[in-house]
């Protein structure tokens, strides 16, 4: 058993547990192998969806995210999560409320009605940044946990928007051509391929997927063209909503635009799970809209 000195409250969000449960179980199992322990954050809910809620009433957005944060404060534990959308809500609201007394007082007035108080006593991390952080795990330790290297595969990394942008308010450095997740992918033995307009959005966010599906898919389609151009065997991301957009989106693109790509889409945790020897069944890859077989045949 790996030592578990790094414990976090695991904020699940919605799409991972309720659509791609393989992401959830992969996160728990892969992080355990590098000494990170994820504990359930009981009673958490939607982050809430930054596009949907933030667009309607930012005050509700702040208050509902604060409720989730308080649950972790009560456990006296930092939060980790595996979704960029959740990161936008949970990390950003934590950050805003820690630095803006007026908003914090407003939120606490509402939270009083449910016997809660936001104290600002914890931090929020994306699991991918913990994997990259040498103080917690780091690329070398991650590489050492690999038992089935993904040698010979080409992987296109989709960073998504809400983890790293807006760059000025985050701490990830360059947002035009970042490489740190590419490094994580290469630690698994795969080749991280570079493609045109890598930082472009998947098209799902801001409520656009629900508002105008064709418009949203057209953005996805552009990314798929760019990824195909460089011969990627799979797309990896760190956001189940991006995953849904690429994965289910390819089926919708086929229906709407008559274009077929068939590119498997795997969350970085699923990819790591495969590299650490987990079976496709243990990752529930059969729930994916796009068949992962062509990719699996290259590594199994």
């Amino acid at each position, binding site marked *: 058993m790996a030592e578990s000195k790094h414990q976090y409250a695991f904020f699940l969000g*919605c799409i991972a547990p309720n659509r791609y449960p393989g992401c959830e179980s992969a996160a728990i199992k892969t992080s355990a192998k590098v000494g990170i322990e994820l504990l359930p954050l009981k009673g*958490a809910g939607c982050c809430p969806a930054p596009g949907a809620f*933030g667009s309607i009433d930012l005050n509700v957005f702040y*208050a509902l995210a604060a*409720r989730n944060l308080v649950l972790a404060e009560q456990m006296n534990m930092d939060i980790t999560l595996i979704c960029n959308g959740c990161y936008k809500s949970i990390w950003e609201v934590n950050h805003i409320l820690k630095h803006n007394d007026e908003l914090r007082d407003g939120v606490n007035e509402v939270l009083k009605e449910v016997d809660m108080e936001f104290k600002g006593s914890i931090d929020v991390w994306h699991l991918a940044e913990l994997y990259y952080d040498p103080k917690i795990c780091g690329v070398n330790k991650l590489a050492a946990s690999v038992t089935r290297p993904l040698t010979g595969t080409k992987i296109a990394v989709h960073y998504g928007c809400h983890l790293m942008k807006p760059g000025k308010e985050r701490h990830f450095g360059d947002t035009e051509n970042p490489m740190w997740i590419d490094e994580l992918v290469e630690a698994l033995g795969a080749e991280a391929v570079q493609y045109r307009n890598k930082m472009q959005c998947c098209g799902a966010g801001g409520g656009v997927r629900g*508002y105008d599906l064709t418009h949203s898919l057209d953005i996805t389609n552009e990314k798929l063209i760019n990824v195909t151009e460089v011969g990627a065997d799979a797309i990896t991301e760190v956001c189940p909503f991006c995953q849904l957009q690429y994965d289910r989106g390819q089926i919708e693109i086929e229906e709407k635009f008559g274009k077929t790509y068939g590119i498997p889409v795997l969350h970085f945790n699923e990819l790591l799970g495969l590299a650490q020897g987990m079976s496709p069944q243990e990752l529930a890859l059969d729930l994916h809209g796009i068949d992962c077989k062509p990719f699996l045949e290259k590594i199994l």
Partner: protein
Amino acid sequence: MATEKNYGNPELEAKLRDRYLYTDDTNPEFLNDVKKVSRTIAHMCYQCGTCTGSCPSAPRSSYRIRLFMRRGVLGLEKEALNDPDLWLCTTCYSCTDRCPRDIAPTDVIMAMRNLAFKYDIVPRNFLKTVQLIYTTGHGVPNNDVNRSAREKLGLSRDPPTTHSYPEFMPGIQKIIDHYKLKENADRILAEEGQ
């Protein structure tokens, strides 16, 4: 001395000489409202267009973020809030990362959407999410196919969220009710005949 251009059209000439914006449809407070909600320096926009040039929504629609920035500065509230393009921003923050004046155009759009909602202007998919969270705690709730998949993975059939601990639901509902959000969502959807 520079000669004045003449297009030989008195009506057009008069229009071109007029450097002022006359419209009864402006709201001088609009810019302040936008700045208050967005907490960004929206008045600093000098219309360079870097935002529109960075925008994934621009090449495939008539949505222009720079136009909304101008509408904000000019107080063209109705024009901004009634434009269906307002809802085509994916909130990707590319414009925000690149704006040379350090404005967050994304947050300007979010603020305008918040202001539009005060006039009941809102696409219905946003309201459906409110209803789902109010009843389940999740914007994307669990279903039976997923429950059995979870079971096969050795996870609990329902995640350890409000799905497994419904005693947390009243807290969520109280917060949403405080802002009358569910009430308004239900009303707007009912008025539209669902």
